[in-house]
């Protein structure tokens, strides 16, 4: 079995294992797994409305996945996507609400604000890693909580003690009557095109530009990159900044498309953490991220149908997603198993 086939098989087997264990959990808990997965399927593809909502859910997942994947390619683990997404969400919602500008300026400005906010949130761990060698995992985790509390405080002070900001101006909105009517009046918005464009940007950056070449080199081997005359520190900072910008745009999807504002939150959105799953499943490639985001976005949205149609708690899908991450992480053992299998076949 070639390496290439194994690389594709590992995530596929992880997904199957995740779904299987999910089915076992449902069985043990006294639910009907077939009815459960049927409800999930209908929740995703049941009608054009569901499909529209599913695609809408996929957009922030693509961007969160890109953020994690981009940092991964430079050898950095950005667990802070969640926090970068929240500050991006806030920045987009604030710019969308506070300014009155023509649409062709306002919308790009709001998107840019989100990207910039996410980038700043990525800059701090990037700088600390590059200059003081502080491990980015812990810093980004801490930055998540700092983002959550600061954004909540900002919302409170801007709205004079309230718990959410006013709706954004029409000129900053990603809403689309055309897409909405096409999908039976779902909340599908233009964000999906922004997300797909960013997939293209990531591919272009990584595979067509000198910057991407350097970033990947640093990811493969820092020392070799250094010897080759690359500025490792600059590249680490760049990787975190671009990663944070992707994540910030993910927040803009929610601010300018889905919700139209931002509310104070008790906890995280979860999109940033699911972004880790998206990136892992997509092997940190731009196209893989689309695939991973489609899977997890669909699962997350389709799960909403499970309590009504099959009387199964929605969290079963979170269990399945967590299991898939677990199995992808344990890819080594799946790889070993596959190699043994193929050797046995060759022996025959």
């Amino acid at each position, binding site marked *: 079995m070639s390496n290439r086939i194994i690389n594709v098989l590992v995530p596929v087997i992880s997904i199957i294992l995740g779904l299987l264990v999910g089915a076992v*959990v449902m069985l043990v*808990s006294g639910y009907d797994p077939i009815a459960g997965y049927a409800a999930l399927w209908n929740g995703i593809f049941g009608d054009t409305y569901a499909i529209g909502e599913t695609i809408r859910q996929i957009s922030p997942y693509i961007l969160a996945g890109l953020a994690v994947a981009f940092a991964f390619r430079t050898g950095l*683990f950005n667990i802070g996507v969640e926090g970068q997404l929240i500050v991006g969400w806030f920045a987009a919602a604030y710019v969308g609400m506070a300014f009155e500008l023509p649409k062709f300026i306002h919308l790009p400005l709001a998107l840019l604000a989100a990207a910039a906010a996410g980038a700043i949130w990525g800059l701090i761990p990037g700088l600390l890693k590059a200059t003081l060698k*502080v491990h980015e995992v812990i*810093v980004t985790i801490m930055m998540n*909580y700092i983002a959550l509390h*600061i954004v909540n405080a900002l919302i409170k002070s801007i709205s004079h003690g309230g718990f959410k900001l006013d709706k954004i101006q029409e000129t900053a909105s990603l809403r689309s009557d055309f897409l909405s009517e096409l999908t039976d009046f779902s909340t599908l918005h233009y964000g999906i095109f922004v997300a797909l464009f960013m997939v293209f940007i990531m591919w272009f950056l990584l595979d067509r530009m000198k910057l991407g070449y350097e970033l990947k080199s640093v990811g493969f081997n820092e020392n070799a990159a250094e010897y080759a005359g690359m500025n490792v520190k600059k590249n680490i900072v760049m990787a975190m900044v671009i990663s944070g910008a992707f994540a910030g745009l993910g927040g803009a999807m929610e601010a300018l498309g889905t919700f139209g504002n931002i509310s104070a939150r008790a906890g995280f959105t979860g999109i940033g953490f699911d972004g880790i799953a998206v990136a892992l499943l997509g092997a940190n490639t731009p196209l893989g991220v689309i695939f991973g985001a489609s899977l997890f976005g669909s699962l997350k949205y389709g799960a909403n149908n499970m309590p009504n149609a099959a009387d199964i708690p929605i969290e079963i899908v979170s269990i399945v997603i967590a299991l898939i991450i*677990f199995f992808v*992480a344990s890819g*080594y053992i799946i790889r070993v198993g596959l190699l043994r299998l193929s050797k046995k076949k060759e022996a025959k």
Partner: protein
Amino acid sequence: MSTFLNVLYIIVPLSIAYAAPLIFTAIGGVFSERSGVINIGLEGLMVMGAFVGIVFNLFFVDTFGAWTPWVSILAAMLVSSIFSLMHAVASISFRADQVVSGVAINLLGIAIALFSVKMIFGKGQTDFIQEKIPRFNIPFLQDIPVLGPMFFKSVYGSSILAISVAILAWFIIYKTPFGLRLRSVGEHPMAADTMGIKVNRIRYIAVLVSGGLAGMGGAVYAQTMTNDFGHATINGQGFMALAAMIFGKWHPIGAMGAAIFFGFAQALAINSSSIPFMENVPSFILYILPYVLTIVALAGFIGKANGPKALGDPYVKGSR
């Protein structure tokens, strides 16, 4: 002066109450990371502990009476320990990325807990428990002026247990052969292996201990602070414990000190509006304080915090 004292009489006991679950969990983190296994999954293990603690308390309160909270902590310890086995198998035997595996543990912990709560109770959170962790007045010490009412009056039993666990952990890690082995597999597993130490066995034990302690932390938090279980019960306490572990430089007593300090920050944040000289400090500053301080500590501005050398590397026999 007397208002100041009155404030302290409220804040200090509350700080200790907030600190206790952090101490348990942070000490758990110390065990795991000292053996070389990163445990980002503390949050999920704590969630599991809180869930098991509350459910066990609700179901067995008739059997165990006043002892229920303690038995619940024990049950939470066992279940979380078994749950952490997943992290151990993935990161030690399957050579998984330990951070990713920890993330999976976090997601899985909250998902399983909420799934079960909805299945058992038919709603998003459990009922409230009747038997809470008892508070004690410590004889003699409570009569000390000023300090007595601050530290020794109506102390949660769990807080006393937490401090004992921290001291015990210090003794185990620094004064016993097992502790020496634990530290050596985290610093240089190959050298330890050459000396005949079973690297992976020690790591398995360490991760299971961390799971058990995080489970206790979760059960203590739920049974002192919220008295029920829902999606927001733990909400970051596990990550704060992780922060306490790092801020305490991977040392049990240091972790305890950091946990008490972070407990103090939380207690202040909740009460800041009612404290005369704190009312102008926005509470979010106190909320983010533990996290900011951890970053500052990691950056080396207050003495470099260095983790164990082999942290995060699976040990592969024979590799160099």
